[in-house]
């Protein structure tokens, strides 16, 4: 079961909404599919990102995938710990493996995200 207090995307990102700040990471399902994550590239602080734009790169021993911004806005923080410990994405994807915080420009975009039940249904389809 995925955390019930989060929102999700079809690209397997999770979003925690606190005011106009969205904390973003990838789901346990995504991390498991990628395998051992060895490198994470995150956008610099202050960069303005559009919703669904590729903003970062996640590299595992198997593949390199893009990280998409679930919502548009300004990047206000990124998880610096991931540069030396990318494995946090595998060990604690919903906690210490958080990736970035975005100050959201249009809160209406939250409405388009998946709720936990919808996301679980998506991953159940495989």
């Amino acid at each position, binding site marked *: 079961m995925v955390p019930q207090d989060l929102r999700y995307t079809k690209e397997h990102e999770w979003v925690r909404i606190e005011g106009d700040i969205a904390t973003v990471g990838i789901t346990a399902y995504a991390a498991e599919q990628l395998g051992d994550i060895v*490198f994470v*590239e995150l956008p*610099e602080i202050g960069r303005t990102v559009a919703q669904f734009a*590729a903003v970062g790169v996640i*590299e595992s021993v198997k*593949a*390199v995938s*893009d990280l998409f911004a679930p919502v548009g806005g300004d990047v206000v923080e990124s998880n610096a710990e991931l540069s030396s410990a990318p494995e946090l994405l595998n060990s604690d994807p919903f906690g210490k493996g958080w990736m970035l915080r975005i100050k959201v420009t249009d809160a209406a975009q939250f409405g388009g995200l998946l709720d936990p039940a919808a996301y679980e249904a998506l991953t159940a389809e495989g």
Partner: protein
Amino acid sequence: MAYGSHTTEDRARMLRTIGVGSVDDLFADIPASLRSSGLDLPAPESEAELSTRLLRLAERNRVDLISFLGAGAYRHFTPPVVDQLLLRGEFYTAYTPYQPEISQGTLQTIYEYQSLMAELTGLDVVSASHYDGATATAEAALMTCRATRRERVLVSAGVHPHYRETLRTYFGGTSLVADEIPLVTDGPAAGTTDMIALERMFADPELPVAGVVVANPSFLGLLEPMAEIGRLAHGAGALFVSVVEPVSLAVLATPGEYGADIAAGDGQPLGIPLAYGGPYLGILACREALVRGIPGRLVGMTADVDGRRAFVMTLRAREQDIRREKASSNICTNQALCALAASIYLAALGPHGLRDVAALGAARAAELETALAAAGAPRLHSGPYLNEFAVRVPNAKAIHSRLIGRGILAGLLLARVLPDDPSLADSLLVCATEVTTPEDIGVFGAALGEELIGAAGRAGAGRVRAGRGRAAGRQHGSGPSDVAGPGSTAQPGGAAR
């Protein structure tokens, strides 16, 4: 894998199997107007006929000339061990298998290539490998844009013109910009990258600079103030790309030492024969911080489950077969055979041997400078050089061509590749390496001296005919003493005076 062409019977059987009447029917979907109307090719020739014809064509190449041509590709002595080892069938492909770890030997040779180049450049990471110096330089420029997320690269006019052209081609169709840093036009620093212009170019706040690309030695053979250029680049938040000639690194400061972030260059001087069109070898190296952005493949060394040394293909996840249109480059192969040649060459010579090669080339070049100056062709610039330099030769084009007639390739006519630089109009770029002999230098100096006096004589005669004898006479008055080269006293040009 057996290879045999399909027989008529094979083709008929295949067509029957898929239920098609003829090969032409396979193309029925393509409108006739779009189909090729047949190729206008000459009739087939037998292997013997073709061999003879190609041999005749090859014989038109002048390989008998005493050569002083460098300009990016250099003659060196290659120990026979290099070619002998390259003949081994296991090495005779640029490709690694799709499960590369099955070829431990291939991976080991690539790993050793990377290690040798890392030592030579003083940088942490070397990718294996690129097509040639030009494409490696272009990839380096692209790396700076990706790493800084900026879109403007400054390229010194002292970088090989072909490399600059390739870089522009790589930038074509993108939003990236490549601006040229001019060269100093006069004074002691003439011919080197113009630092004042460079500083000015950094000033544009609208277009922050991703990278600065400078060659050392430059295309004109000159040594550039690399450390200073690096400081300027870093001060502006840009990366610094050094374009290198690998043999020179045995005696010059390495990119690692003077603070370059990326080094690119052509590996041809390392045991790879001169060939028009290659194959050559592109060297690309960088600091560890840029490892995720370097295109090409990296082979790593690790231990297998039993703790034995093992080589693995690592960090190629950014390439086309995985990243498709987001790949960091379009390089999906590498110049494995040429990289291997470079590795064997370096291993055979060792660090001391390579230093000898570079030092001997520099010593021969100094002798060449003296001989050419004595013949009436002084250096064009005054800054330090290693083994290649430009000389001023009146009427360079005609002299160059006449010297070929005398069995001497007098370097490169600079106006041919850099026609827009008036300061290079009458000049030749000449080079010496360890295979340049003092005898060759003597022959060149003597012939050039004779030609220059001859040319002066012919020009003088022409002017007399044109009724400007006095002007021509004055020119002669200062001429002969300047061109008192070897053998300059008794030759036809002199008699014409």
